[in-house]
């Protein structure tokens, strides 16, 4: 059975159905409905909704709850994610799984409250200080928001690293019919590493990111990067659309992928050989899919709601084997199919 839900509320319900019972947040637009939904639902399912005094405290409450071994999450929007970056770095350095949702808005600074994808670099390259990565998932429909929440929790637990859903104000605010997973089906794993009390049965567990001996710290970071290599091999996800004979392939994720898909359809009606690759994971970036496409495609066009961020990863993924162009709007402006089509016509 499908229900009509707003993206932000669907993310919240999906998290509860994925076994998350601990939500810590701080108000910010345009993720507002997510926290409000949690405040209504968590008490009914025996969970915790806590409105923290700041984004910084919220992410550190997540750090604490994740240390205790439960599924914990926070949600925010761009300026709030900047405040969470410290805690995310500590969680990565302590190998803690948790879910962070960013319903992106325009930046920099206070920016605006309209949809944006200008936090791509932050999410995939520099969510905080130090050598580390987090898993980044990019849904493009409300249904996919639901599906990716449980995938993100599972992957975070599997790899012991923080995971992010990188959405935007458009996806968060739009309503679409969704099929929700059944309750009580979440696969919760044992976490013998958790700081949940040793019960006199084992030596004490320490959740820590401090290593003052350089060779020890290097060894630990290197071990984490060995794990990241496995993540890159196993977790890359992308959807391809009309790419088989495409000479020009658009690359777009999230809300801009919806626009790009419309533009591809219109271009096809005009007989243009264009296709679309839609990254579903932004880290790991679906480089394998891009490399495969680069064997036949003559050019790529990255379509983003930013001044051009993912375009760098497209170039890196295909090792500059074909020209990579960029089309984007920013500041809360959403590209139109007509605008993208015009760019396609200019390039083919």
């Amino acid at each position, binding site marked *: 059975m499908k229900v009509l839900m707003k993206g932000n509320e669907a993310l919240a319900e999906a998290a509860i159905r994925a076994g998350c019972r*601990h939500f*810590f947040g701080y108000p910010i637009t345009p993720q507002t409905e997510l926290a409000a939904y949690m405040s209504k639902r968590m008490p009914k399912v025996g969970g*915790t909704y*806590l409105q*923290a*005094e*700041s984004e*910084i*405290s*919220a992410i*550190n*409450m*997540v*750090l*604490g*709850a*994740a*240390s*205790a*071994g*439960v599924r*914990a999450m926070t949600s925010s929007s761009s300026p709030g994610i900047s405040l969470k970056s*410290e*805690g995310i770095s*500590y969680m990565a350095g*302590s190998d803690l799984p948790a879910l962070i949702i960013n319903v992106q808005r325009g930046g920099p600074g206070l920016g605006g409250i309209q949809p944006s994808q200008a936090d791509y670099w932050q999410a995939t390259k520099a969510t905080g200080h130090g050598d580390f990565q987090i898993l980044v998932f990019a849904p493009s429909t409300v249904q996919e928001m639901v599906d990716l929440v449980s995938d993100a929790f599972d992957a975070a637990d599997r790899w012991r690293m923080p995971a992010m859903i990188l959405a935007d104000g458009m996806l968060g605010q739009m309503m679409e019919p969704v099929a929700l997973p059944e309750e009580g089906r979440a696969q919760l794993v044992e976490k013998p590493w*958790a*700081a*949940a*009390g*040793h*019960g*006199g*049965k084992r030596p*004490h*567990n*320490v*959740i*820590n*990111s*401090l290593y003052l001996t350089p060779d020890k710290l290097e060894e630990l970071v290197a071990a984490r990067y060995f794990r990241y290599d496995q993540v890159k091999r196993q977790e890359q996800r992308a959807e391809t659309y009309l790419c088989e004979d495409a000479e020009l392939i658009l690359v777009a994720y999230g809300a801009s992928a919806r626009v790009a898909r419309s533009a591809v359809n219109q271009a096809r009606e005009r007989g243009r050989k264009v296709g679309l690759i839609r990254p579903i994971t932004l880290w790991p970036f679906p480089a394998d899919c891009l490399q495969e496409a680069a064997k036949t495609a003559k050019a790529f066009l990255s379509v983003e709601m930013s001044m051009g961020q993912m375009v760098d990863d497209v170039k890196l993924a295909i090792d500059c084997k074909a020209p990579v162009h960029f089309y984007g709007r920013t500041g809360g402006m959403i590209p139109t199919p007509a605008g993208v089509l015009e760019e396609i016509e200019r390039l083919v």
Partner: protein
Amino acid sequence: MPIVFQKPQALTDAPLHYCPGCTHGIVHRLVAQAIDELGVEGRAVGVASVGCSVMCYDYFACDMVQAPHGRAQAVATGLKRAKPENIIFTYQGDGDLAAIGTAETVHAATRGENITVIFINNAIYGMTGGQMAPTSLPGQVTQTTPYGRDTDSAGYPVKVCEMLSTLDGVAFAQRVAVNNVKNVNAARKAIKKAFQNQLDGKGYSIVEVLSTCPTNWGLSPVESLQWLEDNMMPYYPLGVYKDLAEGVKKGGAAQ
């Protein structure tokens, strides 16, 4: 031969890294002793903060989490909300609790989080080499107040127990010192009570411990104890600032 005195079980055998004359060791012992006496090591989780005591995660035998600077009480909140049956304590210095972590401290306190906070006030940043702390005294010479703390420019020390005792969420706030046997005994009782309160579900309990930092004060261990008595105790009077017999009625931990 009967054992009349020994190291608490809740301390590991790791050698402490603290400087000679530093009173962290005494407070570690008192915390571990409270955990032993209440028999809660198996369900205790400590939160180490950034500062000299950050490596206390190696010294306490219970499970431990190391928090970002200032965030210990937010981390403790997450730990307690996740597992209310566990006994959660933070161990924080003055820079961590009363400067960078002021928001986390005030709001954990006003929420009445059912946690135990051990607050080491030695009026200086020890780990980074002796800078002015939020609790450095007016006129106190530190690395970053070379002419003495000038209150016109650097403002006044934060009186944590006085400030927190105004908040409805706080069940217990007491300031103690570890400068002599009598005061150490009073500190032992206060720390145990702060843990007992959590077991009884009474809510937020904080013990502020006036401590010494001979290295960064530039004094011998003995001179430091005297300096604490002569300078800190008049500015930071010892005593119970708040003690709600019934607590603030927090659920979860009483069993």
